């Protein structure tokens, strides 16, 4: 199986570089998106921490805010 992967009738450099480029692009896009997501989530939790009781109560009345907080705690 390994030899089939490594020797492709002289085309291995082209084939493996095309696949490697694709997988590296996937990894880079995933990481960048994940970092952006975590950054925004952390920002939300920090901002939420600064709210006073009344503001926090009002914010928590929105289901989406509760979901974001719950997800941030789970991560």
């Amino acid at each position: 199986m390994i030899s089939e992967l490594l020797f492709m009738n002289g085309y291995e450099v082209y084939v493996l570089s095309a696949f490697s480029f694709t997988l590296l692009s996937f990894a880079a896009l995933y990481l960048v998106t994940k970092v952006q997501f975590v950054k925004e989530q952390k920002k939300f939790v920090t901002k939420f921490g600064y709210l006073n009781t009344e503001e926090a109560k009002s914010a928590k009345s929105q289901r989406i805010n509760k979901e974001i907080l719950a997800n941030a705690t789970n991560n």
Partner: protein
Amino acid sequence: MFKLFQPSKIFQITSKAPKYILFLFVIVLSVGLIEALILSPEDYKQSDAVRIMYVHVPAAWISLGIFSSITFLSISGFVFKNKNFFLISKSLAPSGFVFNIIALVTGSIWGKPTWGTWWAWDARITSMLILVLFYGMYLISWRIYENEEKVFKISTIITILGIINVPIIKYSVDWWNTLHQPASINILSKSSIHSSMLFPLLIMTAAFALFSLLIFLMKYNTELIKIKNKGLDRL
């Protein structure tokens, strides 16, 4: 009907879905890679170089599909006055852009052993390059303009202008003499690709589609949290 597109309702699903999609993507991609690199046969003309098709073609298909979806959603956003359509479009764009680059780079790598050149100003390749520029302009427009109404308008204009290029990409191989081969897979007529190659191609397409769905969901969740962050500032 548009209540279904309310961010709070969507977030309930999109916040939980990424982990399952990632799991499914890893499985489908693993099967696809084994099929594409080991089990699928070599081509009688191109030999093993044909394996590049398994990353090049799905990337091209998905980048075209995403751009068409972005255009449709942007226009729908204007027609139905629904901001969420714009948010979905914005979240789809990064994966479309990356898939477009993958299609160009892997196409260039495939070009060297088959055509003897890394690049040719051929109608198909040039029109794909134009598409990546439209993706770039679309993404930049969201970064440049702060005003919501303005960014909705400008990004929609970019997609409308860009969508003119999509049928040109599709039919460029029929309208002009190009180095690029004509389509081997047709929905309406018989495909010229053998099932032993079609099967891995479809698996890899499914893997790529799952990956774009995963990125879309993560990006969409990020955008929703960004909006909520602004909301907390206003409290």
